[in-house]
């Protein structure tokens, strides 16, 4: 294709703008990594941009030697794994059941689910429910209330509906029951949508903080995100109480790591798993979103 002068400039502008855009996305991460790898007391002076000024691993040593944080990391991994497997199974079975085109009351049943996307009891009735069910301070509070994601169910339902009907029918002729059709025929050819929904649920679980904060107390069920909130709010309280002074005292005690660098190191550790996973699932979730977007 021949490109005119005007278009050449147009293209140049686009390349420059998207490059600046992606740098503004990446820069905060670079800055956080640089501070987390810097000597804590030195970092209090500010002015760290792209790389550490006085390299130190003290913050990471602190994070990995704090029992609370290690426990929290274990809990984050546990809830993400259990929550993803349980949530994916729940979503897949429900979506499969709803994808049956001649289901009696199909429209009504789907409406019951979709309606909850637009109207809900809200924060307080949810809290009352969790208390009445006795889920407070239990691992179940991370898993059970999060099993259903209506949006995810609808995305998967749409995917199942678009699978060729003949495939499902042929198996049924051979005498296979619904469960066999789902497990042997539908799920194996639905890997893209399964990967997408698994990613959505896993990220949600990994990033969840609210349920830990509201429904649990004590260190046993604490997660990385929750610890991060604690460090963040503690640090803010310190800054507000006495700028500088207290933090430096704390820093000496903590051997060259400060609440700030520990916070940055925790951020890096919480973010790494996500950064390592999502790019590989990109082609799946992009498709998944499009499927969900076309109808509904």
């Amino acid at each position: 294709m021949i490109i005119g002068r005007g278009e050449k400039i147009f293209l140049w502008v686009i390349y420059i703008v998207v490059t600046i855009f992606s740098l503004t996305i990446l820069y905060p991460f670079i800055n956080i990594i640089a501070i987390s790898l810097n000597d804590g007391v030195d970092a209090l002076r500010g002015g760290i941009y792209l790389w550490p000024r006085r390299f130190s691993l003290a913050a990471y040593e602190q994070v990995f030697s704090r029992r609370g944080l290690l426990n929290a990391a274990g809990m984050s991994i546990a809830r993400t794994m259990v929550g993803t497997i349980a949530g994916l199974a729940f979503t897949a079975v429900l979506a499969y059941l709803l994808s049956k085109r001649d289901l009696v009351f199909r429209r009504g049943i789907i409406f019951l689910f979709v309606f909850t996307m637009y109207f809900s009891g809200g924060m307080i009735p949810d809290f009352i429910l969790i208390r009445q069910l006795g889920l407070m301070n239990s691992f179940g509070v991370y898993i059970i209330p999060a099993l259903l994601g209506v949006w995810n169910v609808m995305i998967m339902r749409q995917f199942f509906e678009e699978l060729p009907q003949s495939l499902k029918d042929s198996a049924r002729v051979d005498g296979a029951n619904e469960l066999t059709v789902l497990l042997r025929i539908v799920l194996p050819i639905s890997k893209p949508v399964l990967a997408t929904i698994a990613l959505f649920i896993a990220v949600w679980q990994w990033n969840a903080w609210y349920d830990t904060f509201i429904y649990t107390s004590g260190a046993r069920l604490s997660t990385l995100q929750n610890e991060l909130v604690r460090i963040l709010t503690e640090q803010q309280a310190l800054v507000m109480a006495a700028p500088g002074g207290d933090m430096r005292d704390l820093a000496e005690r903590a051997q060259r790591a400060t609440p700030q660098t520990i916070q940055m190191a925790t951020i890096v550790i919480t973010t790494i798993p996500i950064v390592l996973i999502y790019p590989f699932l990109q082609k799946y979730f992009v498709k998944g979103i499009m499927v969900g977007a076309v109808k509904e």
Partner: protein
Amino acid sequence: MSMTLRRKIFFNRVKKQKFHLLALLPFLAYLFIFRYYPMYGVTIAFRNFSFRRGIMGSEWVGLRYFEMFFRSPSFNRVMVNTLAMSTLSLIFVTTLSITLAIMICEMRNLIYKRVIQTISYLPHFISWVVVAGMAMTLFSIDGGPINNVLMALGLTDSPVHFLDASMIWGTITGLNVWKSIGWGSIIYIASITSIDQGLYEAAIIDGAGKFKQIRYITLPSILPTIVILLIFNLGYILNAGFEQQFFLRNPRNFQRIEVIDTYIFRYGLQMAMYSYAAAVGLVKSVVGLILVIFANMFSRRVLKMGLF
């Protein structure tokens, strides 16, 4: 067809789908417990609820808590903050997502295009706790990189207080934009790539430049997507967020950062005024539902398209 015959056909279908319907039951039970029971639970907004007496046992007080909220001095402040932050975010996130989508679709270098897309999705996957932590560091008034650079360039003499009351709406909007335009662009990219390429070729023959093509082909073609998403988001206009405000709030910005959800949280869960907070929550849910329904009706009538 006679009634009895119709009934017979229906029962035949039910019989045939016996196992299917049986399998659906636990899911419906779950739906009723975790989604519809809280809708019943929200009736505590009309009662003086305590856990000891339970929902039914608590004394009926009618609209007392609604009046309390509408008359409270916080009402205006909380509403203005909520609407300001959600409207600003809706406008900027939507327009910038579309802009980004158009630019990405113009890119010819496929590898670079993919890299940019991957990077643009990154913030969507990061929790608000992390974003808030980053924001505090970057916008810090003593030695934060952004203020240092602004001062070094001579754009400001003293550090800008990005997280203080005067700037916080803008800062929160900026963070929302940062976090969601990459993700938001996916849907518009899908919409743009499905446009018939012949339209562009015809426009080029007619001598239309890039801007004219965008104005007369791209934007009209993706209008349905834009409208649908706007209707959908209108239902969430009173959801100005929760975590971003919760983490970034401090005594200096408190007046400007309190939104409905943080207000409900503060009164309901931190001060245990369950009924009052439930009333505020109900106002929010009802307004959201009404907005979606009206926006949908309006769009059905005027633009001949809708969400449902």
